[in-house]
């Protein structure tokens, strides 16, 4: 008997069933802490009270969801340390992403958290021009932004009194896809430490920047790093849900890999694709 080639739709049906299982019955996986994640935790933990932490970069909300796991946990951690956080939205969805993270972390006083807008954190308006805006901001904050997201002049926001240029920034946290722009300018040109809650694809593509500026850049690896960060802060969020789905994925991956190769050896002769460079 010849093994038939599975149609794409048949594969997808199996995948859908696979992913529905952990949605109904959580597997409750727990991560083991990697040193890369621990480094970021320690860096934030050692910030003196009153430090100014910038938080921002460019990214698409849905894609950045993977990094939100780490960022939400970090916001929670920072709210206990009395550091000031300024959100810097670089792409047009980043402001919504920042709000989502602040709301999910429940750090604002309206959710019973310790933070008060304007005193402990500020959200700047969308700043166009990517790297151009970033360079301008680092050189001279007051020239680049004149209001916050709601149109309030920054002179009325207490945090912004102490933030005039790159010299006043202690750490820059990025939880977005376009962390490379942040690394190139914030660390590369101005020597500020960057903590990047990167997506797994960003880690494997841009990890090399850690070697260019050793000790200045720390990157976590995707959802796994997010889950580890959640564990360090004793919470369970999207990172932990991602671990469950990763178990399903591993099984599906191995299953289809084996099936595909068996089909190649004993199946009908078609559908063979090859990769050439």
């Amino acid at each position, binding site marked *: 008997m010849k093994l038939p080639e599975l149609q*794409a739709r048949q*594969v*997808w049906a199996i*995948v*859908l069933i696979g992913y529905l299982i952990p949605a109904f019955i959580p597997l409750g*996986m*727990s*991560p*083991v802490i*990697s040193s*890369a994640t621990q480094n970021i935790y320690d860096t934030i933990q050692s910030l003196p009270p009153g430090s100014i932490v910038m938080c921002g970069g460019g990214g698409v*909300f*849905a894609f950045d*969801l993977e990094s939100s796991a780490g960022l939400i946990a970090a916001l929670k951690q920072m709210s206990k340390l009395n550091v000031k956080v300024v959100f810097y939205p670089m792409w047009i969805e980043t*402001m*919504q992403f920042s*709000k*989502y993270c602040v*709301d999910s972390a429940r750090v604002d006083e309206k959710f019973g958290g310790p933070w008060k807008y304007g005193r402990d954190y500020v*959200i700047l308006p969308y700043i*166009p*021009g990517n790297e*151009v805006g970033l*360079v*301008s901001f680092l*050189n*001279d904050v007051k*020239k*680049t932004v004149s209001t916050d*997201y*709601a149109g309030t002049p920054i002179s009325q926001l207490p945090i912004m009194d102490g933030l005039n240029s790159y010299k006043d920034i202690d750490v820059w946290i990025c939880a977005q896809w376009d962390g490379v722009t942040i690394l190139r300018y914030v660390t590369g*040109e101005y020597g500020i430490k960057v903590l990047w809650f990167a997506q797994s694809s960003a*880690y*494997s*593509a841009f*990890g*090399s920047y850690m*070697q260019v500026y050793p000790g200045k850049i720390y990157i976590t*690896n995707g959802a796994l790093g997010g889950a580890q960060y959640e564990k360090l802060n004793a919470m369970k969020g999207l990172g932990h849900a991602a*671990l*469950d789905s*990763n*178990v399903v*994925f*591993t099984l599906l*991956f*191995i299953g*289809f*890999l084996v*099936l*595909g*190769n068996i*089909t*190649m050896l004993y199946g009908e002769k078609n*559908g*063979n*694709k*090859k*990769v*050439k460079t």
Partner: protein
Amino acid sequence: MSTMDSVSRFIRTRITRIVIVITLLSAVAGYFFSSPELNALNTELNLWNMNIITFTLFIGLITIYFSYSKSVSQRTTNWPFRLYALVLIAVWIVMGLYSGLYSDMYQTAFLSTKITLHIAILGQLIFFYLSAMYRTFRVKTLRTGILVIFALAMVVLNSPITLSNWSAADQISYWLLNNPGMGGARAVVLASGVGGMILAIRIFMGLEKSALRAAGG
């Protein structure tokens, strides 16, 4: 040739060249040389640039309006959807301007529509990924063999089952990412960096005309 044409040609060919040379030089020189004048010029140009870019946010609206209204008036395929989209755009703009970008209402509406749809589309990638992988990852040649072995290693090592049962898995996966993986990744970053550098040089020298030609029609 009319005066208008010659003016437009002069702007397209001469003025733009000069503007590019000045702006590009100011950005590069402002960084490499500590001159307050250059730096000030550069900062001012950066601010101009940021303000100009803001207007490009409206370009999509104008293009969609012309394209979709044409589709609706000519009753092309799917035209009722285009009409619906035009109405929704108008409703959304009114809603957004009324409630503000950071209000809870705007955020809920945004999360329930745009973000939901985006996540749903991205969520389908794993389906495409697995079906493509089923077809492609067949070890026939050395090339696919290498791809399959390293992909499999990463998937297995990142899996929470492996990580919680085998303490070395975490270190091995980081070793793979940080040594052989980073070697290739760094070469791509470096070579693309050189490519980008040369492109800027070509634009500076006026050898790369396509960008402006395409814009200037």
